[in-house]
């Protein structure tokens, strides 16, 4: 009952005129980001952070969160119409979605995706509403060793599941971790790696890194490959035939469960959720040979799963303060910029903020359903905006965005440097997402490690003496062992490259 009361209070906050407008801007930007191949939710969220500086924290996070789940909806459009995934989670949708479009059923593929995304996204938010407060109460008992173990687990899962080479994944993660150590040390306060440059005393700016690695580098990649827009297929009837409703709804419910469960685990992401859902649909289908040739379940299941995952990814963020994906890592950075510390205390200390954001997720999903069903044809046209118009605008937003974080040109320069680094990392298959998460977690992980060491007088066994920490460490060890095994046996090919960019 308490939860319902809080949620109603949240709706009162989220449904004020300004918050509704910010939610609309966020999900619209998310849709836009989603349909732009090569320009994903990480860069989209990072670019919009400066827009939020004059807003209240609740309005800011409502808008930024909208980009993430909006992008999951938008990514489907280009997957279905031009066989190019707008963001990584929609890769699977290309398999059957584009085939459906070629059969003159693009509208149905988009319609089914929109319905599935809405149900999956809403189911995840319902889960967030009821599970997060309970999980936060449990997490209140966590001390520094438990937090260190859970952050280590999240980071290990991300690296373990990323890229074709384990070495490249770990290099990227250590690079991110070291970048986090620039500037003042979170415990002693002494300044590290400033090299006598005053601007480096506060470390490297998250927005500059994210915009450089995920925004500028993508523009360089597109410029080097002379990408051109492809002509999209026509969008007609949006709803499936009567006989297709049964299998479609079955796929949607299964996708919701798969996506939700995957999203709750720190370190996983919506690509894994959609891949798992596709595999499940293929396994449960009476005639698996239809898959890859325009099976409606092959679109409904994965699209539902990636949205459910995006919604559920808020659970580790809100309850433990742990980002489960690069976009959520940016969101975590935005929390901190607005003076909020995500974690179990958030529900106690800032209930208006938490419940306002949760309520906005319900509202955002309804807005997105409207945008994707009656307005699907309009978005199909937006997907045709030429890169020559789009990229200068993105560059301008990046320039302004990186400057306005600290009002200094130094950060713009840093963004350009990371843009060049990101270009080469992408070309060399070094997963950039593995840089971002350790960078964001670097300071909290160091703080909790130092505090644990102080508690135990320098004894590392503290992580194995406490039951929760021990369990998490065992799980981490299992993932490390599995990653090394898959690397040695060359079985990492099945895993995706760079995720959610």
């Amino acid at each position, binding site marked *: 009952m308490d939860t319902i009361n809080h949620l109603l209070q949240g709706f009162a906050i989220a449904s004020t005129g300004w918050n509704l407008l910010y939610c609309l801007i966020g999900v619209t930007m998310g849709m836009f980001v989603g349909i732009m191949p090569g320009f994903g939710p990480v860069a989209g969220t990072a670019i919009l952070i*400066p*827009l939020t*500086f*004059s807003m209240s924290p609740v309005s800011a996070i409502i808008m930024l969160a909208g980009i993430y789940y909006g992008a999951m909806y938008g990514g489907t459009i280009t997957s279905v119409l031009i066989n190019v995934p707008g963001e990584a989670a929609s890769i699977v949708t290309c398999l059957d979605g584009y085939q459906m479009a070629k059969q003159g059923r693009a509208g149905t593929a988009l319609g089914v995706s929109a319905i599935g995304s809405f149900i999956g996204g809403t189911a995840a938010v319902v889960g967030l509403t009821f599970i997060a407060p309970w999980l936060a109460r449990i997490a209140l008992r966590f001390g520094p060793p438990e937090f260190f173990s859970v952050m280590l687990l999240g980071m290990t899962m991300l690296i373990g599941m990323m890229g074709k*080479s384990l*070495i*490249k994944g*770990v*290099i990227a993660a*250590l*690079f991110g*971790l*070291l970048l986090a*150590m620039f500037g003042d*040390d979170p*415990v*002693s306060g*002494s300044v*590290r*790696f400033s*090299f006598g440059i005053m601007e480096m005393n506060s470390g490297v700016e998250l927005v500059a890194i994210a915009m450089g690695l995920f925004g500028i580098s993508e*523009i*360089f990649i597109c*410029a*080097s*490959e*002379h990408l051109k827009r492809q002509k999209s297929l026509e969008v007609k009837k949006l709803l499936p035939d009567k006989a297709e409703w049964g299998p479609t709804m079955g796929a949607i419910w299964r996708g919701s469960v798969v996506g939700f469960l995957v999203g709750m685990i720190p370190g996983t992401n919506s690509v894994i959720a959609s891949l798992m859902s596709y595999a499940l649909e293929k396994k449960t289908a009476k005639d698996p040979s239809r898959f890859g040739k325009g099976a409606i379940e092959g679109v409904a299941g994965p699209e539902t799963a990636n949205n459910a995952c995006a919604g559920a990814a808020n659970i580790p963020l809100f309850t433990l303060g742990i980002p489960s994906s690069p976009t959520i890592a940016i969101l975590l950075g935005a929390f901190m910029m607005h003076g909020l510390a995500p974690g179990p205390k958030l529900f106690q200390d800032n209930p208006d903020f938490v419940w306002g954001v949760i309520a906005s997720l319900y509202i955002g999903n309804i807005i997105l359903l409207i945008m994707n069903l009656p307005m699907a044809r309009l978005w199909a046209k937006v997907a045709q905006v*030429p890169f*020559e*118009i789009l*990229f*200068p*605008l993105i*560059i*301008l937003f990046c*320039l*302004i965005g990186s*400057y*306005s974080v600290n*009002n200094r*040109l130094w950060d*713009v*320069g840093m963004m*350009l440097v990371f843009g*060049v680094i990101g*270009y*080469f*990392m992408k*070309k*060399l298959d*070094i997963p950039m997402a593995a840089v971002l998460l350790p960078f964001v977690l670097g300071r909290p992980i*160091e703080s909790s*490690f*130092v505090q644990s*060491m*102080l508690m*135990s*007088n*320098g004894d590392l066994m503290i992580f194995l003496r406490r039951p929760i920490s021990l369990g998490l460490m065992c799980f981490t060890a299992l993932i490390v062992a599995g990653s090394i095994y898959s690397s040695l046996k060359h079985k990492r090919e099945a895993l995706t490259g760079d995720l959610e960019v």
Partner: protein
Amino acid sequence: MMLKNGGLWAGCFFLLFALVLLGVSFEYDYLSQLGGGIGPGFLPRWTSLFLAVLAILYIVDSLKRNPVDLSKVLPGKGGIKTIVLLLLYMIIFVGIVKYVGFMVATTLVTFLMFRGYLKWYLNSPVSLGTALLLYWIFIVWLQVPLPVNALGW
């Protein structure tokens, strides 16, 4: 031939980065002066050491098993021209914005980026309009303190 291996260059970059940080990390306390705990030098030292080891492994791997042709990493002739131009435009923006203000710098850089795609008579109002719109969004509406000239734009 070895120098045309993209993996080698990337490995060297990470190795150099790690070695520089490893060297500098010795300037910081390894253990906490409070006793029992670790100091600000502990994690940087171990992390950079691990990165250096992995960078060496990566170099060896790219030399022995997985070479990456540098020509596939570097952009082609047309691509490199576009990338250098884009970088140049961004550097121009950074260089002049403090002196000429947001409006002039943004109009100029937008004009340069749209050059070749839009004819000058269309490009000029579009660039000015884009700068005006961004000025209104960021400076007027959101009150983001972007650099402006003496006239306030």
